[in-house]
């Protein structure tokens, strides 16, 4: 990094202000998007100039291959039109299949190239290490070399986003972008490059290229969202990370009570960190008139793990659903397997019919979560994280009739607040077990931690340890108060899902808004964890 321009630095605020002035005062309306492009290129150059050729390669390869796919498609359509009368139905079908295969191969080339780079940079050492372990276990002396690989910043995000675009072009859901610089802007748009959200081309691109005039209301809402993001990131997440980081440094030394507390705090920290960062990104984009998708919908209020993944990292979930889940679930392999099962004796029973019906969905879910796990990092613990979530979702799909039957037999109303509370609590427990693999330094330590939940609780030892982990009572008080503020805001938002708290705030008097915003800003100034007096944590999702 040439200099610190992370989202929580003053340099970033100054950078956004300068970009804002240039953008809104730019005289050539048609080319306003070039200001965003220049800002994005500058931003990426500052944070990762040494590895910028990776993002350029992704953009260029995606750009060319999208055009290629589109050309093949349009040529084939032209030919089909010309041969409309000449060819019979079989000939047309044959030709269409040939073109489809050709397009698929071209698309696959792009996917292999770009996911190949991502996989190599992110997973080579993991596979080499695992291979060495396996071979060593069998007594082979061969050792695959490990390499000193550095991940370009945001590679997972921009690779997924670009590959989503290429699939959409292949599916003819979107036209290929003719201007490579516009595609570069889509791939590198600075508010989202560090940690997403992973946008869909059709949803984002046109907003980027349209000229937006200054709009006070949008600017105000954007700023409010940024303030809210800073509140979560600097007051909660980075403060909580002081303890979590300390535990991570000597993970094996702590008691079950401390580890339990750390996992609970991690749930708070991760949400505040990631959703705070996304709020900053969305707020900045909103100032420029661009609405990016919301990545979170109060995920800890979810009543099932399935719902949780629809509320957490929504853009990744949507990407997986569009580009992995449906292609897998709808593939001939699974559809045929399902049909086959239905034809068996077991498939004729009620349970068998249900299992046959949901088999493609549940297996696709398991595959998706395996990928989600690996996406988070190259380590067996992330594989375990993915498998844990995938298995729970698979089981919940397979056993849904059983659960429904139990609830019906017990005559529990699904709207009963106690039952809802139970569902939320149960889901939280499942989520927390998954988080263990995030926090623990290895899969083995993760398993040990889960064991300690049951056997290693020692309140006195835990208290003695926790009080020495860098946070004083004042910090805990601030953490508690700030978390309550977030909780209250989430409850209000949950009760009014069709509007935003900012819109609600708009309806209040100037004095009320003044006081609320003043308290928010001054809380960040005073209680935020920032500056060189602190080692503020990087955004957790930056590493992915």
């Amino acid at each position, binding site marked *: 990094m040439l*200099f*610190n321009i992370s989202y929580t*630095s*003053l*340099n970033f605020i100054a950078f956004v202000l300068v970009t804002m002035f240039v953008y809104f005062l730019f005289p050539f309306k048609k080319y306003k998007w070039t200001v965003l492009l220049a800002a994005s290129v500058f931003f990426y150059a500052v944070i990762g100039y040494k590895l910028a050729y990776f993002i350029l390669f992704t953009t260029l390869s995606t750009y060319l291959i999208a055009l290629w796919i589109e050309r093949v498609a349009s040529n084939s359509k032209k030919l089909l039109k010309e041969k409309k009368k000449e060819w019979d139905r079989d000939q047309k079908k044959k030709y269409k299949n040939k073109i489809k295969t050709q397009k698929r191969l071209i698309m696959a080339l792009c996917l292999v190239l770009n996911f190949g780079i991502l996989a190599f940079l992110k997973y080579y050492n993991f596979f080499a290490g695992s291979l060495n372990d396996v071979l060593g276990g069998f007594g082979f002396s061969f050792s695959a070399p490990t390499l000193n690989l550095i991940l370009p910043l945001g590679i997972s995000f921009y690779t997924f986003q670009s590959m989503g675009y290429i699939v959409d072009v292949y599916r003819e859901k979107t036209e290929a972008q003719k201007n490579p610089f516009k595609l570069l802007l889509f791939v590198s748009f600075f508010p989202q490059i560090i940690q997403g959200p992973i946008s869909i081309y059709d949803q984002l691109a046109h907003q980027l290229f349209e000229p937006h005039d200054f709009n*006070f209301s949008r600017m105000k809402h954007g700023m409010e969202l940024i303030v809210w993001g800073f509140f979560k990131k600097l007051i909660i997440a980075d403060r909580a990370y002081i303890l979590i980081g300390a535990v991570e440094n000597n993970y094996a030394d702590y008691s079950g009570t401390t580890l339990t507390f750390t996992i609970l705090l991690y749930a708070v920290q991760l949400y505040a960190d990631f959703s705070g960062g996304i709020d900053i990104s969305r707020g900045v984009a909103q100032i420029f008139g661009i609405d990016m998708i919301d990545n979170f919908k109060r995920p800890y209020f979810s009543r099932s793990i399935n719902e949780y993944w629809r509320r957490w990292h929504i853009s990744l979930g949507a990407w997986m659903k569009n580009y992995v889940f449906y292609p897998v679930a709808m593939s001939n392999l699974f559809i045929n397997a399902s049909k086959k099962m239905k034809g068996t004796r077991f498939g004729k029973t009620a349970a068998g019919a249900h299992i046959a019906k949901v088999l493609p969905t549940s297996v696709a879910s398991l595959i998706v979560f395996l990928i989600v796990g690996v996406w988070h990092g190259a380590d067996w613990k992330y594989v375990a994280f993915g498998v844990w979530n995938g298995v729970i979702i698979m089981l919940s799909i397979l056993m849904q009739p059983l659960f429904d039957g139990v609830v019906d037999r017990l005559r529990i109303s699904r709207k009963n607040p106690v039952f809802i509370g139970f569902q939320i609590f149960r889901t939280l427990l499942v989520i927390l077990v998954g988080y263990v693999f995030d926090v623990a330094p290895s899969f083995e330590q993760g398993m040990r931690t889960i064991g300690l939940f049951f056997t290693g609780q020692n309140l006195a030892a835990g208290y003695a340890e926790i009080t020495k982990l860098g946070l*004083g009572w*004042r*910090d805990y008080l601030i953490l508690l108060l700030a978390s309550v503020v977030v909780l209250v805001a989430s409850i209000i938002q949950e009760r009014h899902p069709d509007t935003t708290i900012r819109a609600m705030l708009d309806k209040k008097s*100037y004095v009320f808004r*003044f006081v609320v*915003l*003043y308290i928010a*800003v*001054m809380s960040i*100034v*005073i*209680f*935020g*964890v*920032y*500056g*060189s*007096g*602190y080692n503020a944590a990087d955004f957790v999702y930056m590493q992915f």
Partner: protein
Amino acid sequence: MMKYQLKVTRTIKVSLFLLAIMVSCLVLQQFFLRNVDHNSLRIEGFYQEETDSLDVVFIGASDIYTSFMPGRAYEQYGFTSYLLASESITSEGIKTAIKETVRTQHPGMIVVEANAFLYGDSDNDVNEAHIHKFFDNLPMSENKLDYIQNNVPVDQRWEYYFPLIKYHGLWTEYPERLHMIASNLTLDMRGFNYLKGFRTTAHVLQPDKPCLNSKLAEENEELDLDPKLEKRLMDLLDYCDEQKINLMFVRAPHYVTKDTYNRVKRSNKMASIVNSRGYSYYTLENDAQRIGIDEKRDFYNVDHMNVYGAIKFTDYLSEKILYREELKVDPLSDEQKENWSEVVTATNQLYRYCDDIMTHTDATKGAQEDVYTLLKLGDYSGAPIERKD
């Protein structure tokens, strides 16, 4: 028309909000979330001094602000002085302090204590804490900006422009910090620093290593300065040549042991460099015994003298400045004289307060310009001190 009105109203509302935030931040930065310590009170006191009212300004690290007592110098030798010094000040800090002195005071003499140039390496010059301790307390000026632009990495500059970024976390130290805030406020209200920057610790060193001070008078060997520090010394001398500054250097006495002996040799080298450029350098570390510094009684730790040593050093150095360097002393107004007589009283009270602690207790207590110390001084006489030789 409506649109115009709306724009005006919005502008006013937004401006009001931004103003409230800015004013709140400034108040916090200036008073409540400021790292007030003895360094800040000393430096703030310097800027409270009337323009061109000082005869001598002492610049350096703790080596000088624990050694020289301006109140004593005024009482016994009649010249006014101030210690523009900061804990472990860097060589760049020394240069900036000289520039600030020239900008605000034009004293008859500037005395630099050599410590900043005598380190075995240049690590102190990049020690963030030591840099901040001095520069955070300087008011914004061209000299401060120069330092920031030329020495501070881009990432860290905001912290110098807006110290709140660095110190906002001090809220966790309340209410313990309240007395320093009170000290700052009382200094603001009084308008001058009672001790003119002097600070000490009431304690007598109980050494665990033999003292080599008796050998120092004979020690002529020289050891090269760290190249970076030597270059900065040369830059400093060039600047003083250019500005025709009446500058002299001094090395205060220390409890020299085998571990710190090389500093003496580097001090000898520095003396040669400085002398060759036509400036005086008083190697009073080597002359500690001649001054009468008693190694068993006159230090509170190996690097600093207590008030027993400081009073001897002050007398000795004052004589040198006055008679050998022929300092021209400016006359004072009645009001200035009145203030200085308060300084003399406070200094003498402080000496007696420390003497009392050192004579009757085993305690180690810091004594400086703060409300705790100043409150206690009222119990002691401010009459002239008779040195305990």
